[in-house]
């Protein structure tokens, strides 16, 4: 089960990078950036997973046996998701502005700065 998670996350990251590198539409580049983020988040939350582990909550003060999944990566994943959402929002607002200024989203035409 964990192996599939890792494979899926790598596939997502590679697909995201593929989209960023090959797609000429600025909007699709933003989608690619999102995919990379999702892949990393999946890998992050899988890194803390333990088979048959329970949620990391102390339910009773008398409880002596614990077999938790690692809670730290879950906290990190939340942080990373929030950052990812912010990146997407900022990127999309820039895409809107690019459309206003250049009248196109084609990255081959948005290249006034070169050389």
């Amino acid at each position, binding site marked *: 089960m964990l192996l599939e998670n890792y494979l899926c996350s790598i596939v997502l990251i590679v697909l995201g990078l593929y989209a960023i590198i*090959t797609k000429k539409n600025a909007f699709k580049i933003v989608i690619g950036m999102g995919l990379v983020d999702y892949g990393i988040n999946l*890998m992050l939350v899988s890194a803390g997973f333990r088979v048959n582990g329970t949620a990391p909550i102390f339910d009773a003060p008398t409880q002596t046996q614990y077999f938790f999944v690692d809670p*730290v990566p879950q906290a990190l994943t939340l942080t990373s998701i929030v950052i990812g959402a912010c990146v997407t929002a900022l990127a999309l607002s820039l895409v809107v502005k*690019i459309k206003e200024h250049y009248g196109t989203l084609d990255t081959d035409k948005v290249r006034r700065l*070169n050389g």
Partner: protein
Amino acid sequence: MTNHLPIIAIQVLFLGAFISGLVGYKSNSLRKFVIFLATGTSLVLTLMLFKPVMMEGQIISYWMGNWVPVSDWAIGIGLEVDQLSLFFGLIVTVTVFLGAIYSFKYMSKDNGQDKYYVVFMMLAGSVLGFVFTGDLFNMYVMIEIMTFAAVGLTAFRNHKAESIEAAFKYLVVGSIGSSLILLGTVVMYAQFKTLNLAQITALLNNAQHTPVILFAFALMIGGYAVKAFIVPCHVVAPDAYAAAPSSVSMLFSGIVNKAGIYGMIRLVFVVFASMNLPSMQFLLVFLGTITMFIGVTMALAQSDFKRLLAFHSISQIGYVLTAIGLSTILGLTGGLYHALNHTLFKGLLFLCAGAVLYSTGTTDLNKLGGLAKKMPQTAGLFLVGAFAISGIPPFNGFVSKWLVYQGTFAKSMETNNPGYVFVTIVALIVSVMTLASFIKVTQSVFFGQLPKEFENAEEVPLSMRIPMWILAALCLVAGILPTAVIDYLIKPAVLAIKSAGNYVAVMMGQEYATKIYTEGIAIPKYDYAMAGWNPTSWLILFGVLLIAFALVALTGGFNPRHIVGAENNNAKFDVFFSGEAAEHSHVAGNDLFWGLKHNLKGYFHFMHDVHNGVVNDYALMVVSTTALVMLYLFLLVK
């Protein structure tokens, strides 16, 4: 009390961001007061750390919420300020303080200033947090906030298409870099189940470098190479530097790429302790050498003031990387010294570019000219910066460049490897080309003929000149007192780089460290000799030359002959035109060094095609660089 200083210094900057956002829209002066107070307090707090850390050699650790390690296992987030962190922390707070003062007047023509200062302070706080933190994930969060704020500031003048375009490219490439860093962090966590840098250092010290660790290492090197704008991940840097307001460009070259360099040093020297391997040294020196060479040749071909400075910024980071890649005491001293100097003189140059933009409204080298008559102070300060970056004594650039030359040469003597002599030669050539391109800027902006449209240009206000004067003074001080700078700033930082054991001992406890470092914590001997560098005599020589120049000028030695009747045919295209004062035949930026550019046009056309402005290609360059670094590490580093 001292323990709390770093966290307060960071919080003050973030608090300044939020408070200026809350109250700033009501009144301009209140907002300026808040910003001044916040940046000033942060500077004072960091300076208060100077005595205990730099002079007494303490390392300050602070556990957030007092989550100290339980049974040798770090759980909480810790701050750890060693001498290296404080060295970069001082660079950050000084730059931010001066940048904020400069912004007050410089940004007064723009609207939306309340938002500007919020993002400005976020940038400042995040970089300070980045250099002070002792936690791998915290490093990622801080550098992501930094990228975010930097993108926001690049896009600040969003009525210009160039700003938006640069910001979008910077965001795409920068977030690939951040993603690489995060992926590396995840892999490290999966291996070691801890995020504390000190503990990872300790665990790695005894662990085999498995392929998984090398994978994480390569990802992080790629990520921080993007953040430090190392060739070939540099392509978005000139766009962003040129499009951002000048006070922000100063922060970009002063602290944003320094953050990348800091991350690189922290990882390769302390955490992974990999710099005793010749193959790692070669990797950094190689990257540094191509960075300085490509940066400076691209700068020669530019016709925009700020874009040219941006390429120089990349080139100077190449010097820093080459020097620290040598991994000798001399090399590290030169590298850190140059990092400090680069912040000072490049900050000064960007502020001068901002002053020119403020007075004339353009930074196009082909339109400007003769501004020295209208803006004498800016011209003089620019000359100081240009001398410093070109490595002319007695300014600071000379000292650090000399250390770099000497370090590379000594390295080649040590290892019997003639390749390092080649690096010395490249460094010398790059320095000459730096001087050449600054002759071009000085000539085409400040000297020559004043175009008619700039006849009303005026000197910039005092509050913009004060930061420039301070930076110029610091340039001179760092040039004539190199031994003091090295003793009080550089030497402790270099020793901190070289002794990872202390870093672990302070954070995780002495007992833990002795368990890991069974052979004891070695403190390297610090010895260096600066051959043939006597600042006092150079200062005297400089003074004598200045007086001689002034005497000749006063006796009329430089008065050109006036030639009448050159209105019709523009004299600048004649074979001999120098020394003639023909009307409106200003030698513009593109007129200089065209012979060089013509003879090497193959190279220049190729480089122009590489910087083609298509964001997909830029992303490809970053990804393939990381892939190559990964391949290199897997093949050559055992």
